[in-house]
């Protein structure tokens, strides 16, 4: 039941920018993941010893070094800083000259300005002593932190966009859904270009505490570099991370006319809700399977044409089984022949950002004809029996790539990238 005809206006990716643990910039990011190195470590941003999970994948990122002015660095929450820097790299990569009225922005984020908010909270509440917080200590940018559309505003101002701009916030699928939203906007004619991607900088005490409370993050604190173990039998939760990835999405003819280098077409995107539980997943993966089915159908892609699956692979017991089931439902027997890997094994789970970072990994994999591995995978869970590209990257040409995501609130999203039609 879907009448998603192939849109008349097709959407391609012509620029990529990345801020990730292990390295800022596309090249540093690809170097890390293609070599199977991990960037997870004991948390350094503050003392993690009061927490159950004490590891994270942090970005070594200095906003001034990365080109922001001191004023911008003061004003912007860290998540906004990441987004602006990644957007600049993407726009430069694309060689695009921005036409303001025809350029939009779509940025995804699950937790917005959480870091900035918590820092300000500690000040105005006198470290939690006062419920009746003191407005005299509030900084002017507190309202920008309060409503995270300030992040998409910063990107739009920086690139000069005056078309449709939005922040998309669907939890851990925000990174896929924001890019899907950007595609929607171009397809229906509201813009010819959308700077789309996602960011999250959630490594802050309140985030650690809330994931500790539900034991969703790993407490493998004595082995930080191997703590993220998607699909492995010994996995026991995800590693919290921060990151951003931003793309230049362009209407295909617009890109062709100016001779842009096209990474791939976004030939399908769909999202469904599991309507089951805010944090739990049923093991059958049916709603993710439905999102995958619809995304493939939009691109007129047969399951057997999928060359690589980029997994959500967060490393929780429930997720890795859930999406293995979803991939088997949709790809059938072909699932056993299709390499599938999780880069969260190397850069952790940056919540709303990771969906976009994973799209970047897919596009770079297509460019280099190399599929990134799943690090730390030594003994797969017997219920996870697909080819997860353990430990070492795989040389393989991938023309059609499927990337999936799953998030709190029940969100299940799938996107198909295809470079044959680009």
């Amino acid at each position, binding site marked *: 039941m879907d009448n998603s005809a192939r849109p008349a206006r097709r959407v391609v990716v012509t620029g990529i920018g990345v801020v990730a643990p292990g390295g800022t910039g596309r090249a540093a990011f690809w170097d890390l993941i293609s070599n199977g190195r991990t960037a997870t470590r004991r948390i350094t941003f503050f003392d993690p010893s009061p927490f159950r999970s004490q590891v994270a994948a942090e970005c070594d990122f200095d906003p001034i070094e990365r080109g922001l002015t001191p004023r911008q660095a003061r004003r912007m929450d860290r998540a906004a800083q990441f987004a602006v820097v990644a957007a600049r790299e993407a726009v430069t990569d694309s060689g695009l000259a921005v036409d303001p009225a025809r350029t939009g922005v779509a940025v995804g984020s699950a937790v917005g300005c959480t870091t900035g908010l918590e820092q300000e909270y500690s000040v105005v509440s006198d470290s939690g002593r006062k419920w009746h917080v003191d407005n005299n200590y509030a900084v002017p940018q507190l309202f920008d932190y309060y409503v995270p559309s300030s992040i998409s505003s910063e990107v739009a101002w920086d690139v000069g966009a005056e078309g449709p701009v939005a922040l998309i916030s669907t939890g851990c699928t925000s990174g896929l859904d924001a890019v899907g939203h950007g595609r929607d906007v171009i397809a229906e004619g509201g813009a010819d270009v959308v700077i789309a991607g996602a960011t999250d900088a959630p490594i802050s005490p309140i985030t650690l505490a809330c994931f500790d*409370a*539900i*034991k969703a993050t790993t*407490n493998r604190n004595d082995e930080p570099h191997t703590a993220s173990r998607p699909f492995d039998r010994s996995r026991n939760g995800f590693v919290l991370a921060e990151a951003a990835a931003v793309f230049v999405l362009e209407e295909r003819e617009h890109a062709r006319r100016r001779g842009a280098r096209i990474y791939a077409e976004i030939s399908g995107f769909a999202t469904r809700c599991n309507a089951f*539980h*805010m*944090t*739990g997943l049923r093991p059958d993966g049916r709603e993710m399977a439905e999102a995958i089915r619809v995304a493939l159908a939009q691109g007129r892609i047969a399951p057997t044409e999928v060359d690589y699956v980029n997994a959500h692979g967060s490393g929780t017991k429930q997720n890795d089984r859930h999406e293995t089931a979803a991939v088997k439902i949709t790809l059938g027997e072909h699932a056993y022949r299709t390499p599938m890997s999780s880069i969260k094994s190397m850069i952790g789970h940056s919540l709303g950002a990771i969906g976009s970072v994973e799209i970047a990994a897919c596009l770079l994999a297509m460019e280099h004809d190399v599929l990134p591995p799943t690090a730390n995978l030594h003994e797969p869970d017997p219920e996870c029996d697909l080819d997860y590209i353990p430990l070492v990257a795989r040389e393989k040409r991938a023309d059609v790539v499927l990337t999936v995501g799953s998030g709190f609130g029940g969100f299940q999203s799938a996107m198909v990238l295809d470079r044959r039609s680009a």
Partner: protein
Amino acid sequence: MMTLAELVAIIRECAGDSDVADLDGDVLDVSFEDLGYDSLAMLEAAGQTQRRYAVTLVDDAVVEARTPREFLTLVNGELTRVG
């Protein structure tokens, strides 16, 4: 020591009153699932129990305590051990 009545009070506070069972009835050996409480509700109840009774409950043990009796055995075992 923690009693069934105290556990029921904590569950009500953390996760609301059961929609499907009478918590004031004979529920000692009824599974939390049958009482309508999922793992999230029980994690919250375990957290509240730890705070109120000043005990530490090991991850796996909490997940394996499927009924009020098993939960109370776990908690009171810890209280005895530490006490």
